[in-house]
């Protein structure tokens, strides 16, 4: 009798514990591929219309091929890429009459002029939510990666940004499309990268400082170096 009672108590408590755990995991909605949280933005910003390629057959569906760093301007000069201020959106959109009456742009101008119901004050910043959020113990520097790949190696901006952010120019609201885990970072940092490519800025013996290890100089092959690979470079 006692054994039966014990077993049933165990089963009930196990069931309760498992249903509690299931509840806890449902708290954050993840994207379909489980790479990050599903983020609902205040305005469904169409990245493909701004940065996407030109569509010659249907110009209204194609993009403007705007450089990523036109809006995310701090990527090349600070640790964070930055979200453009409202003024930057309005700067262009006040003179684009053709889309002025579309729902998203009307929403945008509510933040600029204030909403009619008074809930949004004039010129209040749009509360964008962070999609590519790294843990508190990780330090990532946009500037170094942009300087290295865009300015020193002359790679296309969208390719360099896409290493971590994926093909944002085909997205509407940005979704996380890479894992951004430590293994993801290390995979790239342990590879030999060309120190400088044709057309890029020459950096001379600076290659040494990327990997903290003198690159093996081989006269016949171009100079390569690894990314920094000690713990404190990225962990803080």
């Amino acid at each position, binding site marked *: 009798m006692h054994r039966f009672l014990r077993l049933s108590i165990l089963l009930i408590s196990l069931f309760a514990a498992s249903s509690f755990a299931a509840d806890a995991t449902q708290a954050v909605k993840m994207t379909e591929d489980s790479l990050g949280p599903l983020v609902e933005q205040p305005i469904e910003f169409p990245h493909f219309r701004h940065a996407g390629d030109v569509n010659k057959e249907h110009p209204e569906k194609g993009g403007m091929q705007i450089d990523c760093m036109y809006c995310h301007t701090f990527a090349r000069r600070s640790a964070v890429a930055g979200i453009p201020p409202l003024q930057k959106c309005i700067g262009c959109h006040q003179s684009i009459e053709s889309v002025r009456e579309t729902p998203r742009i009307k929403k945008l101008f509510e933040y600029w002029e204030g909403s009619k119901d008074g809930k949004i004050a004039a010129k209040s910043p749009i509360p964008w939510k962070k999609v590519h959020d790294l843990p508190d*113990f990780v330090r990532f520097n946009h*500037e170094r990666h942009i*300087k290295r790949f865009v300015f020193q190696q002359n790679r296309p901006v969208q390719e360099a940004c896409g290493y971590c952010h994926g093909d944002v120019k085909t997205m509407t609201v940005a979704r996380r499309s890479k894992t951004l885990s430590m293994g993801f970072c290390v995979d790239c940092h342990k590879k030999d990268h060309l120190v400088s490519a044709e057309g890029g800025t020459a950096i001379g013996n600076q290659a040494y400082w990327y990997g903290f*290890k003198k690159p093996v100089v081989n006269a016949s092959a171009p100079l390569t170096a690894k990314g920094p690979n000690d*713990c*404190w470079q990225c962990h*803080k």
Partner: protein
Amino acid sequence: MSVSNLLENWAEFRHTHPVDDVPHDPYKWAMSIDLDACTGCNACSVACYAENNLPVVGKEKFLHGQSMHWMRIERYWDEDGRDFPDQGAQFLPMMCQQCEAAPCETVCPVGATNHTPDGLNSQIYNRCVGSRYCSANCPFKVRYFNWYDYPTTDNVWPAEMSQQLNPDVTVRGKGVMEKCTFCVQRLTSAKNTAKNEGRIVHDGEVQTACQQACPPGAISFGNLVDADSKVFKQWKAQHVEIAEFEQAKDRGEQDNKLRGYRILEELRSYPSVMYLERVRETAV
């Protein structure tokens, strides 16, 4: 990290003090502290609290030995029969000595503390499991353990005060070990600026928080590889060698006019901090 990768790179993973084939280059961060200039004012310690998000634990926990002062002033009272207000003392600022052959590194079961190529002893909070073996093995007792989740349980930083936290430094949670980092967030930022400009960090370009706050300027910090740096000149003037475990001062060379020494050198942990012996007679 696969096991084969770990085994192949074992020498790098457990890198000890510099040997001729793997010298520190271009950086080896080091410090020198002039005890003759130190007045024991504790400004360095306060600056460290502000810079590195250290929790103030309160009197009770302090008495339990649970304080988190990465930079502490050790007092050595003079035993000459005089009582407190007149009693003299020697002051010794004590922080992680960033040993070249650190005893803490070899005992960490999860490899959370490692030697970096620029000569620091790194502590990775998210890797730490809180075994506290490193602290037990540290001869200087400069590692501090988070016995409580200070931001939540003790409310060390109430709502408004969380704005004062340094965003470049993690707020540590319960159960991890922490210690002085030589203000690695400042070093990283200085190195990034230097890399962008295609040079190495100049002497004086980067200061640690304690050095910046020290009123008499007793603390010097810099790159020991750079022959123009103040630290290099001080180490050289005192004939202190990073890879030696007995210095010229210990051997009584130069008519005992040398002042430079490193603490517990005979343990051969090769610390990166040189102290300059006090020469004045009185405490203040």
